[in-house]
């Protein structure tokens, strides 16, 4: 029997259900305001820019570039045996104030990671937990 997944997982709140369902379908969605066009990450019920609640879970192409990164050598809790792992802040080039999304990198040589590196969202279905989470991988 494989070890159960023992790292924190998102609670999958009802108001964010389109996002989590999107991950299951290999779609990375970010709320976009229908009134002013502002992209809002992390999601809130209203647009940061104009306070409109008319937002759509807009589909992105799942591609971005690294804003910053770190190679973690001492991990907390369930991440302790994953070290070294790469944690990245990724810019999604969609608007004036570019949203930045945090995630771990997979399929990557830690020594090759650099600021500005093109990356894409990849998906991991967590068996038995009913949730899919995202990571980033190099976008060759």
């Amino acid at each position: 029997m494989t070890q159960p997944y023992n790292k924190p997982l998102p609670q999958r709140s009802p108001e964010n259900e389109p996002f989590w369902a999107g991950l299951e379908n290999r779609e990375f969605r970010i709320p976009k305001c229908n009134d002013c066009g502002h992209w809002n990450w992390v999601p809130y019920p209203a647009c940061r820019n104009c306070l409109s609640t008319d937002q759509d879970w807009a589909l992105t192409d799942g591609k971005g570039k690294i804003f910053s990164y770190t190679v973690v050598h001492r991990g907390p809790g369930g991440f302790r045996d994953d070290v070294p792992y790469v944690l990245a802040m990724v810019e999604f080039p969609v608007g004036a104030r570019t949203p930045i999304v945090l995630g771990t990198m997979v399929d990557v040589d830690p020594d090759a990671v650099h600021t500005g590196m093109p990356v894409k969202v990849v998906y991991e279905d967590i068996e038995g937990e009913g949730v899919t989470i995202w990571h980033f991988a190099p976008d060759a």
Partner: protein
Amino acid sequence: MSFPQRKAAIVGVYNTKQAKMLEGTPWTLALEAIQGALDDAGLKHSDIDGLSSMMYDASLTAQQMWVEQLGGRPMTYTSHGIAGALVTKAAATIAAGLTNVVCIYFGNAGMRAGPSKQRAAAEAAPVIRKAPRVPDWDFNIHGAYMSAWYALWTRRYMDQFNAPYENLAEYPVIARYHATLNPASLMGERGEITVQDVIDSPMISSPLHRLDCSLDNDGGYAILVASAEVAKNCRKDPVWVLGGGEGIYTDFYMSFTDDWINDNGQSVRRASDIAFAGAGVTRDDIDVTGMYDCFPVTMARNIEEMGFCKVGEGHEYIKEGHLKLGGKLPTNTDGGLLSHSHCGNPSGMHVVEVVKQLRGECDARQVKDAKIGAVLSQGYAVHGVAGVAILGKD
């Protein structure tokens, strides 16, 4: 618009012993700190009529329990937040006549902030268990924690401004030197370190090495802010609150945008500009500072956002040694969070040290003729919440 001048002063400060493990509970350590600050001021617990909690549980109901503990009679002010802002808001509230003696307090025992605590919990847990569920955008899902967040900040800063790691690594060296002059510090007795020692210490989260990271220990402290009328009868000379400010933006390590570090500044800039304008002093008037220094990049960004140097030049300012005793801006003369103590929610300790400097109580690490000091508290997302207080003696 100026801050109400010489209407409120810090009249009592106290740090409990700071150590890896202390006997007691958060409550008893905070209580010991409050008793110490009352002794320092020459006041009684029944003189306190306002509370500013820095406890991990700073809820209103928890504060009510402290009202009961400290006399069981109605008080007239309550607040929570980070220390620089709490000092400022206490002074403003006192000047408005709403309260007379505000106690800012914190204590922590056995609650590690870093991964060691979580590791112990993981080892104690049963082998088979469900993954813990956390809020949707929680950074813990991605294996982030404080050192990793500041590592991300450090890397961004280094890349954005071509800042050499070695410049930033000068800060732990300065902090350790200060700690060697502070008998109460955790690390002083281990002696001075070099930049090479920092580089040779184990990698925690690149580019941060162990000696770049805050300590993680137990301890408590308390600060008493009182009206001018109360202050004139206190045991020690008043340290006046000349001005201050608070800044708050972004959620708790969730939302960031690509203008994270920009020339217009963020919450620390807002708080600083309000504080200096209100106090009617300039950056050049500052003789000593205490700034929240959880990692070297925090210090580089602190002095940039506070206006002691330009954005992107903080690493050079550190390298040039200005923050060291004898430099033009002696900072964290107790050894700060890297070499004195990080007791969990430590921003009040920067206030305590600046107050001691302005009173001339710092012995081997005393800044000569220190008359005006500045305190910066920050945290809750890198430079998310900011609190600045400008302090001065007669």
